[in-house]
């Protein structure tokens, strides 16, 4: 079976070369037979990648420990569900997953054939991308490599990865990463073909937003996994690998906004090309970081020789695409006029500046240990305090823009327009700020000005977005005489792209509330208690009921049962655990969480004595639930905006020709 898998990869390698050659020959000669044959090669590659992927899954399913990769990442006692997901638990399989997704995406693009004369260029560029990944698997790190002697038992999967969050996180992240290859390929194809129109942007809109959505989900599911599984009470550690998936998300977000200016005003063509190049290259940079071992990371696949190949491919992609862009600069002529300093267009420019600025700050912080070591010879660390200090003010400006952008009209905003639109959200944010400060001064809670200010900005953004819905509904009611529900429904459904975007903004704002709250008002304490003892943490009363142990498969688990009540009202029973995996030297802390819309009570079992007395680490994390709810709202908003049909069309052009 393993040989069949390897053979599938080997044939895919040949087919990828054939695809590049075939499309190139077609472009030169226009030979239809070659074109059809090349398309066949693309579909065959997609089929073979599927075969290879499912064969590896099968090998995990039957615990075939003659295959090195299966032996390294599985064991007979691994639940079947995790056996299926173990395929991407390590480097080789994750590369296969990447290639599989890329091959399927390429087949879809070629099958859709949205811009007929561009498809061969796009197909060839995507095949170059595939070729690199197949090359790595065929010649450097074969997922189907067999051991000289089959092993009776596998080494087992990293216990940290045995969590549902880790099932969703890698797949969604990869779907996002690979998805950005499509708009990149179209952009490059447009440059090669010397086409300066925005057709490539329109055609790739679904791909770009879908990639962005998956990357959002990837980041969010990763955060949820870290929160529930890693047992440190946080969800984002600014780890280099986390940063690697955050950076393309930021530049992708900037791209999604700036293409609107190209659509509407025929401007920012060069900037959009730059953004999609950066976004794509950052996805490759992420794979380099994970595999190179140049930076310390919780998520890395460890040091391997692969890093230099990924770095080389990343550099080639960056330099090649930039050279192409510079060569075509005179072709990318664009209109150069804004009607006013204050308009939605100019607010988008600022939004791009901040999004790219945060991406740059994150990139700079990620690579700074290498820069510093190269310059000074000293090893330094750049971690949470740096990223929080640098990115928090930028994030606040971003939140402010999130509120300002919807309130400003396209083309030109008058002073009257600004006063009309800004008064209510500003007033509500002001009242919130004053109220919160007053309550703080009156000692109802700990007064912290900076977080209250941040919350007030988020309130402003929230109100600005909500008011957009209300205002639109009222205008529609006035114009059509419809009742509020019908007017709201028709307003949003007929402008899905716009209001879907606002729903996404609402999701982001919910997440911002969670981020501000959980980072500034979190509370942590250590508590000791005997069995049947009770301790209080803020309004919570926790009764330690029982300490017990059990063997789950090969894992030894010690757990404590705790009963939690708040202000006399029983909330529930929770069970934090300490798990000793035979394949892992350190026992793993499995927290248990009682979650509410206001805050999470997060308890970990830290230690215990023979008499049953135990030590618990208790955290109260405010508003964290809104992080996950915000994520769901983003998904809903994206699906709403993407749903085909009337209402999802592009906006009108506002140029001097229209």
């Amino acid at each position, binding site marked *: 079976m393993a040989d069949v898998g390897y053979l599938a990869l080997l044939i895919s390698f040949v087919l990828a070369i054939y695809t590049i050659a075939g499309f190139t020959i077609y472009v030169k000669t226009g030979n239809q037979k070659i074109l059809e044959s090349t398309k066949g090669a693309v579909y065959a590659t997609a089929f073979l990648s599927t075969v290879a992927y499912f064969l590896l899954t099968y090998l995990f399913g039957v615990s075939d420990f003659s295959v090195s990769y299966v032996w390294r990442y599985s064991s007979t006692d691994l639940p079947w569900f995790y056996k299926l997901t173990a395929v991407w638990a390590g480097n080789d399989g994750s590369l296969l997953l990447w290639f599989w997704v890329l091959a399927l995406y390429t087949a879809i693009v070629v099958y859709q054939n949205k811009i007929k004369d561009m498809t061969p260029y796009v197909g060839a560029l995507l095949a170059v991308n595939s070729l690199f990944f197949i090359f790595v698997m065929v010649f450097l790190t074969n997922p189907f490599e067999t051991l000289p002697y089959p092993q009776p038992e596998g080494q087992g999967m990293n216990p940290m990865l045995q969590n549902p969050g880790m099932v969703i996180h890698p797949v969604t992240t990869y779907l996002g990463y690979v998805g950005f290859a499509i708009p990149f390929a179209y952009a490059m194809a447009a440059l090669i073909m010397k086409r300066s129109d925005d057709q490539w942007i329109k055609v790739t809109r679904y791909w770009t937003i879908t990639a962005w959505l998956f990357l959002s989900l990837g980041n969010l599911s990763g955060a949820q996994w870290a929160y529930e599984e*890693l047992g*440190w009470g946080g969800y984002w*550690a600014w*780890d*280099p690998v986390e940063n690697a998936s955050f950076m393309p998300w930021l530049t992708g977000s900037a791209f999604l906004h700036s293409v609107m200016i190209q659509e509407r005003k025929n401007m920012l063509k060069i900037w959009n090309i730059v953004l999609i190049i950066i976004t794509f290259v950052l996805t490759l940079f992420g794979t380099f970081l994970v595999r190179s071992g140049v930076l*310390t990371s919780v998520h890395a696949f460890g040091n391997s020789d692969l890093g230099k190949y990924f770095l080389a491919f990343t550099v080639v992609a960056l330099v090649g695409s930039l050279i192409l862009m510079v060569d075509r600069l005179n072709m990318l002529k664009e209109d*150069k*006029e*804004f*009607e006013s*300093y204050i308009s939605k267009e*100019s607010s988008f*420019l*600022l939004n791009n*500046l*901040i999004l*790219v*600025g945060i991406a*740059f*700050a994150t990139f*700079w*912080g990620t690579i*700074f*240990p290498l*820069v*510093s070591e190269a310059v*000074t010879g000293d*090893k*330094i*660390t750049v*971690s949470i*305090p*740096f990223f929080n200090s*640098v990115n928090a003010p*930028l994030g606040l400006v971003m939140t402010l823009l999130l509120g300002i952008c919807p309130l400003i*009209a396209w083309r030109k905003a008058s002073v009257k327009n600004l006063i009309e639109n800004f008064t209510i959200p500003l007033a509500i944010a002001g009242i919130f700020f004053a109220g919160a400060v007053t309550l703080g001064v009156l000692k109802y809670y700990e007064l912290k000005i900076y977080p209250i200010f941040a919350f007030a900005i988020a309130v402003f953004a929230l109100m600005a977005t909500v008011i957009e819905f209300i205002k639109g509904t009222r*205008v529609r009611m006035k*114009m059509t005489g419809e009742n509020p529900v019908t007017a709201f429904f028709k307003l949003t459904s007929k*402008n899905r792209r716009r209001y879907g975007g606002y729903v996404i903004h609402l999701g982001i704002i919910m997440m911002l509330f969670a981020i501000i709250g959980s980072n500034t008002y979190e509370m*942590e304490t250590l508590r000791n208690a005997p*069995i049947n003892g009770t301790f209080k943490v803020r309004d919570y009363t926790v009764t330690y009921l029982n*300490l*017990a*142990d*059990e*063997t789950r498969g090969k894992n030894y688990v*010690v757990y404590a049962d705790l009963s939690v009540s708040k202000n006399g009202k029983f909330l529930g029973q929770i069970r934090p655990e*300490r798990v*000793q995996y035979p394949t892992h030297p*350190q*026992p793993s*802390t499995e927290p248990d969480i009682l979650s509410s819309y206001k805050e999470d009570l997060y308890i*970990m079992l*830290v*230690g*215990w*004595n*023979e008499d049953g007395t135990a030590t618990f680490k208790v955290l109260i994390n405010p508003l964290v639930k809104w992080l996950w709810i915000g994520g769901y709202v983003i998904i809903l908003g994206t699906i709403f905006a993407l749903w085909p049909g009337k209402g999802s069309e592009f*906006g*009108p052009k506002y140029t001097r020709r229209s």
Partner: protein
Amino acid sequence: MRFNLRKCALLGLLLTLLMSFTAGPVSAAPVDEKLKKEIEAMLVCMDDCGMIVTACDNSTAEYMRGILKEKLALGMNKEEVLKEFVKIYGTKVLAAPPKEGFNIAAWVTPFVAILAGALIIYFMLDKWVFNKEDEELDAGLQAAAKLDRARLEEYEDKLDKELKKYL
């Protein structure tokens, strides 16, 4: 209580010993817990796990927490404790680069880059708006001869209606 006493006690003993050992002989002395947490958040666990000490629950982090508690119990302030850690582990123990020497570049560069970006946007915007005003002036002179005020208003009215469709 259901309990595999031997196994559980062994694991518990290990954890408790680790905690009590790292707490050291001065563990009874009072330390400012808030300050301790603050300093923990400024230190990185030195076993290459990449996590900050507050977040990490492995033995190295536990050991480092012990040192921290000990230093605070001796009456050291934040700066002194951090210096002690740098003495033991080097600068890499700090979770953020110190704001001195070349490392200032880490803190300043992002803001300098954004400021440069803001200036570029300002000058471009200035140029674009100027282009528009210039063009409007030319177009206005020509149009003035052709369009009377009433027709212009009619045109603006139509434009507003069109725009409303998209607002």
